[in-house]
């Protein structure tokens, strides 16, 4: 194993060296070699196991494998560690025990110590009691708030809102809402301009001070750094306005199909390596409007418990039975599929018509990368269909940015429906669905998105196709691969540094979505405010987007971040980590992380 990794790491190093010409900074290599190999965990699969698996075309999953985890493709190996590192931190023994039983990799999140959990709950209790008290004071008229009031003639209508939701929004969310909805006044690039605002009544109203501040952006989903107000993509978009206008004012079925969208769909199919593709102007709508035409009553959907709201809505609208399996857990998925096939449809007991598994490439709140080889193995074993939502992973993973399928070295043909957004990596708007020709033809004819949704705007199409051309290398440069390499490198550097500082980080080593656990919702709000004071923009997430006791700050790495910017961000984060006492992990001062 050492021999393999050393050679592969050497090649990785060369790659980085060639790419680093773009960045000014470059650390010396021996440390990098040492560090990366140091951080790789022992359960790495040699690439031979992959090829043998490919040769029979079917992964044997019944028999337990020792080093079970299939699907570490050569690129991932080349780029250093990606296996198990995160998981080996908190609860390595538990996860390895689970691995022994089945060949699927099951991950366990390191959690906060029990006393932290107790304190988190206690802090909620205090906040809720005080909120109740504040509500009571307001009701009695002891103090007034500029809360929007019901129409004077409608006071006797059934109340529109109320209960706990109101209590939460009026008291808890309101005080903290300055960490959300921050208004930009610029392009969401690596540096963004925020309009300064202030509140004199605890978040009820905001006043713009008229000034702006330059903030380092670690919140936007600008993975490949295509969000820019100059350069070839912006020019292409502006040109498209002159040539094709801004709107079609029609649906695809009625008269809204333009030549440029038709061409874009060809590019997308080429980019993903599928037979055919369709594009829609809204990523959320791509899920919620297209899933219902794939499954109906009498079918079963197996949905990951952390799937995005658009997938959940799409599933609900389809009328199919829905079962939820544990996050990224192929073992639980298999168990549920077996039970479902045996039990049949609820009530009637008839066998299900078809089973569709719905997973995401990268989970936006956890930073986990789906274990696609395991999921594909389960899917193949039981004849289910796989719907893969690559909202965050397309462009952000794989040596040429083709997403999680390329990352694991899987065959795109094994994924029945590839869905993704054009909003994030390609810095445009909308979503795509790709797959076999037959599938796409059905969607084209029968989906709500095609029949009732308007088609895409020309400049948005131009932005996507020009950025995709760059990623495919059609522009004659290797800028596309430079971008993916910089993203991978930034991601690993930032993650490793954060971890060594003693923060508890969730997710996979190669995932550019980096959640930093603060557990306390109060701490995450403080974190969000203090980072902004130091001109760093991060995303603070609390309930209901996360479990109540698992609030977190989230960083999104971009290929356009430079090492200086990352270092500056790390310095700020470390400082605030000390202030807020959010370093829930183990400090490692000895390891020097190379860029």
């Amino acid at each position, binding site marked *: 194993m050492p021999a393999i990794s050393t050679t592969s790491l050497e090649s990785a190093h060369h790659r980085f060296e060639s790419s680093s010409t773009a960045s000014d900074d470059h650390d010396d290599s021996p440390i990098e070699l040492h560090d990366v190999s140091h951080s790789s965990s022992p359960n790495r699969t040699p690439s031979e196991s992959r090829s043998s698996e490919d040769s029979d075309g079917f992964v044997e999953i019944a028999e337990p494998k020792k080093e079970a985890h299939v699907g570490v493709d050569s690129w991932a190996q080349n780029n250093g560690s990606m296996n198990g590192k995160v998981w080996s931190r908190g609860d390595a023994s538990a996860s390895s025990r689970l691995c022994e039983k089945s060949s699927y990799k099951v991950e366990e999140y390191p959690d906060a110590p029990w006393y932290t959990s107790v304190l988190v709950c206690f802090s909620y209790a205090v906040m809720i009691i005080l909120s109740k008290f504040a509500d009571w004071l307001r009701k009695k008229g002891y103090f007034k708030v500029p809360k929007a009031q019901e129409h004077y003639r409608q006071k006797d209508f*059934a109340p529109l809102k109320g209960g706990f939701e109101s209590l939460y929004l009026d008291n808890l969310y309101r005080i903290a809402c300055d960490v959300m909805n921050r208004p930009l006044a610029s392009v969401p690039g690596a540096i963004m301009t925020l309009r300064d605002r202030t509140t004199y009544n605890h978040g009820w109203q905001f006043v713009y001070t008229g000034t702006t501040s330059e903030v380092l952006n670690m919140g936007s989903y600008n993975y490949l750094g295509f*969000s820019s107000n100059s350069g070839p993509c912006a020019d292409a978009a502006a040109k498209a306005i002159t040539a094709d206008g801004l*709107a079609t004012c029609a649906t695809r079925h*009625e008269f809204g*199909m333009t030549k440029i969208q038709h061409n874009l769909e060809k590019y997308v199919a080429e980019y993903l390596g599928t037979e055919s593709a369709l594009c829609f102007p809204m990523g959320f709508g791509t899920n919620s409007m297209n899933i219902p035409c794939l499954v109906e009553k009498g079918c079963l959907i197996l949905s990951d418990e952390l799937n995005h709201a658009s997938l959940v809505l799409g599933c609900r609208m389809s009328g199919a039975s829905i079962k939820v399996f544990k996050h990224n857990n192929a073992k639980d998925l298999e168990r549920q599929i077996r039970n479902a096939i*045996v039990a049949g449809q609820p009530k009637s007991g008839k066998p299900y018509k078809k089973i569709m598994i719905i997973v995401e490439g990268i989970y936006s709140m956890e930073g986990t990368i789906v274990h696609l080889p395991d999921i594909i193995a389960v899917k193949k074993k039981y004849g289910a269909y796989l719907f893969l939502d690559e909202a965050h992973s397309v462009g952000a993973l794989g040596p040429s940015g083709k997403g999680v399928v390329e990352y694991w070295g899987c065959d795109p043909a094994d994924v029945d429906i590839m869905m993704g957004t054009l909003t994030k990596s390609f*810095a445009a708007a909308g979503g795509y669905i790709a797959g076999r020709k037959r599938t796409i033809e059905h969607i084209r004819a029968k989906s*709500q998105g095609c029949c009732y949704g308007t088609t895409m705007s020309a400049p948005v199409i131009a932005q996507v196709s020009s950025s995709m051309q760059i990623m495919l290398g059609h522009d004659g440069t290797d800028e596309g691969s430079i971008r993916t390499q910089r993203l991978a490198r930034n991601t690993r550097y930032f993650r490793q540094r954060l971890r060594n500082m003693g923060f508890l980080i969730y997710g996979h080593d190669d995932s550019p979505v980096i959640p930093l656990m603060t557990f306390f919702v109060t701490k995450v709000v403080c974190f969000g405010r203090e980072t902004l004071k130091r001109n760093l923009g991060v*995303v603070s997430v609390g309930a209901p987007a996360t479990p109540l006791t698992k609030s977190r700050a989230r960083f999104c790495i971009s290929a356009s971040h430079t090492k200086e910017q990352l270092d500056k961000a790390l310095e700020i984060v470390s400082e605030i980590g000390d202030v807020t006492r959010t370093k829930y992990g183990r400090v490692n001062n000895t390891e020097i992380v190379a860029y």
Partner: protein
Amino acid sequence: MDSVVIPIYTTIVSVPYYHYVLEGLLVLVVVFLWNRRNRRPRRPQLTEEEKEELIRKWQPEPLVPDTPQDHPALNPKYVDGKMGKYVSIEGKDYLNLATSNFLGLVGDERIEEVAKKTIYKYGVGSCGPRGFYGTVDVHLDLEKQLAEFMGCEEAVLYSYGFATIASAIPAYAKRGDIIYADKGVNFAIQKGLQASRSQIEWFEHNDMEDFERLLKIQAEKDLKNPKKAKVTRRFMVVEGLYLNSGDLCPLPTLMELKWKYKVRIFIDESLSFGVVGSRGRGVTEHFGVDVTDVDMIMASLENAVASTGGFCCGRSYVVSHQRLSGLGYCFSASLPPLLTTAASEALRIMDEEPERFDHLRSNGRRMLEGLRAAIADTLFYVQGDALSPVFHIKYRSDDVEEAEKKLDALVDNAFEKGLALTRARYLVGEEAFPIVPSIRLTVNSQLTSEEVDKSLKTIAEVVRSLTKK
């Protein structure tokens, strides 16, 4: 201590013994029934081998059925260039009577200039949802502008027209609430109603008596259970101008019913925004209804405004709620800044050039009257309000297939003569109510009277040739 135990003891002793026997029996019956209920759905325990057998035998259906290759959706006409008054298809220009560019704002140079400037300031995408650095100041500006335009307190901007309607309704209506909806509402509303999981009460299209009948039935129910009635929210969902029929909603009557039966009113103005009313403010302006009395107006920016996205406006108390509960608002990336400023500029043009509304209306009237004359004495007929820029041409026949064939022939023949028309497309089987096939013909403010007359002449010719056969 004794003071507690002794009374209990005496009570126990004083109760006759048959009482205990009866109660014991009752408990046994309950246990028996409980057991049976639990056992019934359970099939006999399967052995592992039997389970394996079942799993091995299970055959899934194919993911999708075959799509016939002649399906119209697989053979669309690809438009080259702008979707303006004329569209170019394979090098030939056609007069466009198919898209909803009512005010002729597609291709407007002022708007395009603004959009280009926006690209060079903000880039194309916003790269995030509104909560997480996806709010750009142009979004806030457009929201303010929309609120002022409509005379409301607040507007909420969505990034897609369909999602606006389909998300706004379930943001308020939940399980246990009642929604009264017109049977003629468009598909986006139908999906919103479905997502809300509320109880849906359908009334006949634009039939206010039928609506009131439903309200009265509910009022009687409420008398029986006033406690529940007090917390049951009621909504009515209507369209300003109905996409599927071109009819106007009877807003004054609806408002009366709103106050009488305490039902909140949501109006989908996707089609009427920028069309109806002397200054394009929609049905509230047309009927002279105070806009603050309407609980929420939802509209798409993809028709008259010629951009992408949608918005909801109304009183802050109602509208701001969806900033946290509207799924399509919270969980979707925000509208690209360039499309936001394009919509802003379109609103400015609408304010500066109100003659566009007049042109649109006169074109609409001319087209409707002309159409009625052109296809009089045939089995074709027109549906639509005189104020509407959208008309439906239908064919009188009991045979749906025959009607579809005739309408398709009309579209194809008109296309050969340089007229772009389209059938109104629906997903058969997905719509809540059966659909009568039709051609959806639209007019815009840019058409000259000659162009209207010429297209009417073409349609009349085609219709005559079709009826001769």
